[in-house]
């Protein structure tokens, strides 16, 4: 088999895995958009906040230590304990639920029925706010997140595929972390799809998305539904934060992964949970393959940022609601 082809396959495989990671972030967007029509720009910051909190809890950091020290002239930093990963994840999830409650009650509850762009704006405000609070709470240095996920190449795969290409080929490279992410993402998606299609709350969630007023009128508690979806989105953000944080450390830039998720959303449709995954895969493969075949050799590389968007854009021209998005009902 020609090695060039095998490398192409490798690129595709890695693109798929990268796509799953994008999709993890996109999922959070979809959940909130579906249930409330809110385009939640803060999703990336939510992931950052979740990861920060997780690390903070694991390391026993004192929240707002810097602030407290600055005001009271004290020197406190750590509680001096370490929390095991599983427990810390649970605690963080609880924090995310609390956050969801706050976000809803202090912000979006007062914005019911506003135009989408206003809500979008509010989420940007929220992003700033959370970013500031996250920094104040846990400090803005880079933190190492280690919840025991495997990292590095899967040597097994590498060794067992090495024969394919003869001399020149090392075997396929796939990051173990990516494999875990894929598994987790698959589980998440299945669970979320089941939830939204077959449960009463899921149905209510979709109803709320269509018409707030009508949902109110049949007695659906918007407050409850929205706290619910924000909690879910917070949880998804936590998962995304763990996966990305394990790669790059937990730091401000984590919030920028939101930008990787947007083309995924466009492609998959803002309202479709499976769409997030499929969109992620297409974008992941597409951008990696483009960089491999055209970007790096001919265009000087670093095409990934825009390629994803342009790909999504071209796609949308033919299917304005994205691959799986709900058909836009146009009637007069």
């Amino acid at each position, binding site marked *: 088999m020609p090695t060039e082809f095998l490398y192409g396959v490798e690129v595709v495989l890695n693109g798929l895995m990268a796509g799953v990671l994008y999709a993890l972030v996109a999922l959070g967007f979809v959940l909130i*958009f579906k249930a409330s029509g809110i*385009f939640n720009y803060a999703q990336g910051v939510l992931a950052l906040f979740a990861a920060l909190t997780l690390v903070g809890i694991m390391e026993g950091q004192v929240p707002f230590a*810097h*602030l407290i020290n*600055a005001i009271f002239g004290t020197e406190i930093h750590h509680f001096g304990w370490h929390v095991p990963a599983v427990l810390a994840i649970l605690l963080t999830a609880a924090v995310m639920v609390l956050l969801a409650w706050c976000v809803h009650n*202090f*912000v979006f509850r*007062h*914005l019911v029925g*506003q*135009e*989408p*762009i*206003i809500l*979008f*704006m*509010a989420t*940007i*405000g*929220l*992003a*700033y*706010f*959370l*970013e*500031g*609070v996250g*920094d*104040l709470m846990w400090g*803005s240095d880079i933190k190492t997140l280690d919840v025991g996920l495997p990292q590095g190449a899967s040597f097994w795969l590498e060794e067992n595929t090495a024969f394919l290409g003869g001399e020149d080929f090392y075997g396929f490279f796939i990051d173990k972390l990516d494999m875990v992410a894929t598994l987790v993402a698959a589980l998440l998606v299945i669970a979320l799809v089941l939830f939204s299609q077959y449960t009463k709350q899921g149905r209510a969630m979709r109803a709320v998305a269509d018409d707030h007023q009508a949902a109110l009128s049949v007695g659906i508690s918007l407050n409850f539904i929205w706290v619910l979806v924000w909690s879910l989105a917070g949880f998804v953000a936590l998962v995304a934060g763990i996966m990305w944080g394990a790669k790059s450390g937990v730091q401000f830039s984590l919030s920028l992964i939101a*930008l990787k998720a*947007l*083309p995924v*959303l*466009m492609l998959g449709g*803002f309202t479709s949970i499976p769409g997030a995954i499929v969109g992620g895969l297409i974008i992941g493969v597409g951008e990696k393959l483009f960089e491999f075949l055209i970007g790096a050799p001919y*265009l*000087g590389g*670093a*095409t990934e*940022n*825009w390629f994803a*968007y*342009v790909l*999504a*854009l071209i796609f*949308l*021209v033919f299917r*304005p*609601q*994205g691959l799986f998005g709900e058909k*836009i009902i*146009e009637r*007069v």
Partner: protein
Amino acid sequence: MLYREAGDFKTSYQDDSQTFPIKFDRYRYYAVLAIAFGVIPFLINDYWASSILVPFLIYSIAAIGLNILTGYCGQVSLGTGGFMAVGAYACYKLMTAFPDVSIAIHVVLAGGITALVGMAFGLPSLRIKGFYLAVATLAAQFFLVWLFNKVSWFYNYSASGQITAPDRFVLGYQVTGAETTAVAKYMICLVFLTVCAVIARNLTRGTLGRTWMSIRDMDIAAEIIGVNPLKAKLTAFGWSSFFIGIAGALFFAVYLGAVEVGEAFGIQKSFLVLFMIIIGGLGSIFGSFAGAAFMVLLPVVLKVIGVDLFGFPTDIVAHFQLVIVGGLIILFLVAEPHGLAQLWRVAKEKLRLWPFPY
């Protein structure tokens, strides 16, 4: 009755459709202009020019531009940064290619070039709507930034990839380059802003404005009524980009003097300008000013209060700044989702009725 409308009769439709139908408003408008042109230039110093006034004026132009597209025509765009970059690079190329032509002309031409680019990126808007379009405009943002970064022709093959504005003069006053005085910077931006604002106002109050607004409010109905959606959207993209391009050109040439595309015209810029128009008020020229003022002033005010007044560590202040800016945005939206302009309108309405509550 502090604010009167009654007794201010119009005798012709022309009077009725003027910008400030109420006398009181009209006088205030002249007063603002007089102060802007006649008083501030004598008071201004480097700090006020560079930190507050010049960015405010330039951002106002950009906000007006975006407001045309988003506020009037309803097409949410996150490509503002990219379009500003087009303006900046076009201006730079023009300035260096035709050093003898006045920079004022270059700036306008830069706006024109940006308009063309904007229209090209506006084409998909015919099919793509709402947030899908917003995200699609990010394609413009990222692509343009990448392009200006990659193709060295745009920065005249300079080693650093930065573009630096050479010294240029308008009417004998230096307006770009290090030796430019605060007054010159301020005045050239002010003139451009005034002209842009008047044009924007003219466009939005007439046929074109109504075409845009009809597309914004209900595009299907608009089309059935006889609005050609492609034309309406493209003109909106064109004019919007024109203003944004001018803002970008001034931002580069007059305000910063040197830019690197990724840093100066990154996605943050797109969000910032969007912020301005939403905080200020969508579909309102006044709102563009208010929003720009708010977003330029707020961080400075917070910094001054936090660091200089209370002496907090700068990082805590910076974090609090994020918290406060974020919090204020939310607070504003909750209090008045339609921005400062609407707040102002409601206040006027109340004043008009004052002292009666309804």
